[in-house]
């Protein structure tokens, strides 16, 4: 089978790779591009471990054919930290011990970023619904939910120059 040439933008960099026509984006990111932060949990869109932002929308990379992403812009977990600084979500996951084995963590971080991009000050209920497509078998979720709320509060404080005290639920 001839391989397909793809040009896209990943985490701000222009990336080119070759893929098979029936390859998933998940396999292409891991095996062709070398971005192994994206994880395979179920391969059927149930667990969210392979979540990426595809043209700004949170998407399971396992449910996308790699040839579809030609010309698109993507963000993976590798793109969250900037200039050696962890993203507030990553920092809050660390500080709040919102992970144990860590396999689900990249997907949770990306899905949480998608939520905070569109809703910087979510309620706990909104966080729980937004992360319903991500499964974690270790933490029982509460620490994850709290870490996202903490990150939202930190980001609000930073945005407001620290002048107002953001509240967490």
């Amino acid at each position: 089978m001839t391989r397909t040439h793809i040009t896209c933008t990943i985490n701000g960099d222009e990336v080119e790779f070759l893929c098979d026509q029936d390859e998933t984006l998940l396999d292409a990111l891991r095996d062709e591009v070398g971005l192994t932060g994206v994880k395979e949990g179920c391969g059927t869109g149930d667990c969210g471990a392979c979540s990426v932002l595809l043209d700004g929308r949170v998407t399971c990379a396992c449910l996308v054919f790699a040839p579809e992403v030609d010309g698109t812009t993507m963000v993976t977990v590798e793109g969250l930290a900037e200039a050696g600084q962890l993203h507030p979500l990553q920092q809050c996951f660390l500080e709040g011990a919102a992970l144990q084995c860590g396999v689900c963590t990249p997907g949770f971080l990306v899905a949480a970023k998608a939520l905070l991009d569109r809703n910087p000050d979510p309620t706990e209920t909104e966080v729980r619904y937004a992360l319903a497509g991500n499964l974690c078998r270790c933490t029982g979720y509460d620490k994850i939910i709290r870490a996202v709320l903490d990150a939202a509060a930190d980001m609000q404080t930073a945005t407001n120059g620290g002048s107002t005290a953001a509240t967490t639920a």
Partner: protein
Amino acid sequence: MDYLSPVSVEEATTMLSQTPDARVFAGATDVIPQLRAGRPEPQALVDLKGIERLMALSQSDGSWTIGAAVPTVRLTESAELRAEFPGLVEAVGLIGSDQIQSRCSLGGNLCNASPAADSVPAMIVNGMRAVVASGSGTRTVPVADIVTGPGSTSLAQGEFVVEFELDRPPANTGDAYLRMTPRTEMDIAIVGASARLTLDDGVCTAATIALGAVAPTAVRVPDAEAALVGRPIDDEALAAVAAAASEACNPIDDKRGTIAYRRQVAGVLARRAVATAAERASGRETGEHRDGASQ
């Protein structure tokens, strides 16, 4: 398996006529799991998202046009669509997670032909029509006539849905969709119930009611509709709706629910959906529905 990405309806129909063993897809949220589960690979997969018409969402004076491949997140984000068809939008918003909503579409939800598809009863009660393309042109078909059984449709080989037509609602019209799932999120309906009513001074002048997940296809409930038209929406009318909805079921026993349970729940949800649609039609929604929708 080849990946094909046509940019026009004509190019797609030509590809499909040249490759009889081809399968169209939009969000791929059903296709990829089915292939992984062992369904035979087609010779080619035809990605319809490159066709502008299938990705367009527009409104005119008389109607909405919803591209068959438009990701449902664009429908749930549309305040205008939600204002006119809150029941349709709440049904669409119940399909899967945010990750799935970024990709799944009305065309896919319909043509995958699951009896439990959440959007289908809501499309039926709103009288939506599917514009179906093939090599010989297009035809317009009521959504209710597309699905013929679990996993099967009335579409011929090489045909696909281009877009849906949705007439703007008459005055004093409201719709609602409710479903029952064992879990709050990320589950498949045991029962889905959709209702749309038009009221005139408290009296019902038009009613459509459809159920999902209780028969091989989504079903209309004409006896429940007849119990409403010409009458006020009172306890007696709602009881008649519940009885007719339970009677209209032809459900299966499975791990999600028994036949008896599905029948009972179908009556309850149909009654509640009618009550909410009536509140919306009269412009005095209580706001209780939203909590009920997620239980």
